[in-house]
């Protein structure tokens, strides 16, 4: 446990920038929108900025990335194939707790199954994570319902909590501890720890009503989804409202579906691209030749919520797939962000 003065907190990021490419929250001026961005000028970081519009998952799992390139001139000529990914040390500075949980889900999914995803592993390998406790929740947040905030409790190297004039700094790893030592941070006392706990407790009381209301319901709805007790008509109501835009998957910190396409660059050269995909798209499960085992849109919606809210899927992540960030609610052209679907399932809503 350490302390760092508020005015000095970016020194941590500066120190990291010596060995890592630093990413952090930056506010775009005209729109006021927060992005979790590659930062070259550390002073651009606004630690207190609202939760970033897009989750930092794109750092470890980009929207579009080349994973391989090849060249083949046809016929009996040789094929040159080269993998196209590299380890770059990255530091995520000022990550919110929900987004850390998202990365933990991705870790368990990409690295913890039968096959290890090599591309993901390269992104993830050399990484330093500094989380930032949400001392004030944001409008759509409901991490208190999904056990993923407002304060991270594991998986970080350093965790920062704004306790007034200072940030309370917790080291969660040896490399976190080492950095605190290197920066000669002042030791914190038990008094400071209780101040931090008080800040977290206060934050929890500040969540919007919808999220505290959902708290008990998330686990009950998980039960209904897992056992198939969510009504057909409710799924149909949800499906009718799906605009098939893919946004919910793209902004979800734990969604990991991807598409693979070979993009021709002319002259026999080709890039194999891996891009985000969404189970809400009709073409997602359509096979060549047109047969689609998952045709009606409600089937596809159902699939997404099964993925987020069922026990069998939770086994993959060792927790629910939803991390309570609320972003799917911001971006949905229908009215079927996850908290709303929970509401529809519990109220058995089938029409307006």
């Amino acid at each position, binding site marked *: 446990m350490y302390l760092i003065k508020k005015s000095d907190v970016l020194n941590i990021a500066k120190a990291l920038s010596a060995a890592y490419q630093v990413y952090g929250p930056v506010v775009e001026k005209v729109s006021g929108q927060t992005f979790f961005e590659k930062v070259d000028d550390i002073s651009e970081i606004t630690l207190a900025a609202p939760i970033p519009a897009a989750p930092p998952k794109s750092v470890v799992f980009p929207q579009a990335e080349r*994973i391989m390139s090849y060249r083949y001139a046809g016929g009996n000529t040789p094929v040159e194939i080269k993998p196209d990914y590299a380890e770059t040390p990255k530091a995520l500075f000022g990550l919110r707790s929900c987004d850390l949980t998202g990365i933990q889900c991705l870790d368990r999914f990409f690295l913890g*199954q*039968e096959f290890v995803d090599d591309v993901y592993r390269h992104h993830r390998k050399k990484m330093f994570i500094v989380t930032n406790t949400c001392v004030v929740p944001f409008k759509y947040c409901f991490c208190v319902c999904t056990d993923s905030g407002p304060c991270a409790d594991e998986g970080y190297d350093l965790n920062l909590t704004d306790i007034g004039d200072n940030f309370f700094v917790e080291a969660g790893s040896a490399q976190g501890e080492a950095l605190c030592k290197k920066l000669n941070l002042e030791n914190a006392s038990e008094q400071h720890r209780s101040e931090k706990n008080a800040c977290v407790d206060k934050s929890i009381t500040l969540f919007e009503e919808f999220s505290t209301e959902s708290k008990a319901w998330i686990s009950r709805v998980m039960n209904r989804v897992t056992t198939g007790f969510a009504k057909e008509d409710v799924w149909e109501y949800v499906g009718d409202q799906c605009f098939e835009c893919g946004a919910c998957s793209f902004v979800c910190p734990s969604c990991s579906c991807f*598409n*693979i396409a070979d993009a*021709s660059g002319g002259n026999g050269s080709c890039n194999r691209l891996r891009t985000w995909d969404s189970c809400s798209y009709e073409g*997602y*499960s359509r096979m*060549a*030749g047109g047969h689609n085992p998952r045709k009606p849109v409600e089937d596809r919606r159902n699939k997404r919520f099964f993925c987020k809210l069922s026990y069998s899927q939770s086994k993959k992540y060792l927790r629910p797939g939803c991390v309570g960030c609320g972003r799917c609610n911001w971006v949905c052209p229908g009215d079927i962000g996850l908290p709303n679907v929970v509401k529809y399932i519990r109220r058995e809503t089938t029409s307006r």
Partner: protein
Amino acid sequence: MNGIKIVTIPEVATIEEIRDEIRDVKTFYLSLDNKEIDKNFKIKSGQFIMCTVFGAGEFAVSLPPSPENDRFHLTVRKVGSVTNALHELKPGGKLGIRGPFGNGFPFEEIKGKNIIYVAGGIGLIPLRSSIVHVLQHKKEFGRVLMLHGARTPDDLMYKDNLKEWQSFDGFETYITVDVAAPGWTGEVGFVHTLFDKANLPIENTVAFVCGPPVMFNTVIGELMKRGLSDDCIISTLERHMKCGVGKCQHCAIGRTLVCTDGPVYTYRQIKTLGEQI
């Protein structure tokens, strides 16, 4: 027994020979360019690979060769842009291979049982591997039957194999077409209409069923009516796949992934998946 598995970056293979099977379906005989890997590339029957057609993309395809003493090959129908590009290739052309992936057909577990293969059209492709393998070990099984139906005589798959199998001692083969053509002297009718004639065994029996959804559902219904239990009916599912290793999620059905948990399932399992075949 476990050989090499090519997971992320494809290995280059050369097309040695191409045979026309039926309309829009060709068989490609391949060898991996890296001889060391070629030697250690072992498959199980019922598995699949991811095949890259350079410049066009990658697709999942089931493996028809037997794991033992069979030339490595793929049989592919042209249905989309990638398989269309594949059909344009000539011998000497190059492909990329990843795999083999998937669980494969049970082999040890079914020893001593009667085996029924029911294949509709190109549904024979994924079953070929198992058929050849079981025939190589025919003595270890009870009755072995195959019923193959196709739309017309021209649509019958693997005609050379069929001829061979028809004269294979103790292999009971039945072949039928939906629509006869001039010169056709064999059976006419859907494949399940041959069940009585074949005097299907039911006790201590396993059925492998593969074919288009309509045929599949009818055949399953007929088999179960005769008393075959749903866990003795085995099929292999096809899904849209991008990675083959459980990551892209395109092939997810309910709680299972066809690429890593499948593609071989018993009908009992398929019934609980909650999706169309």
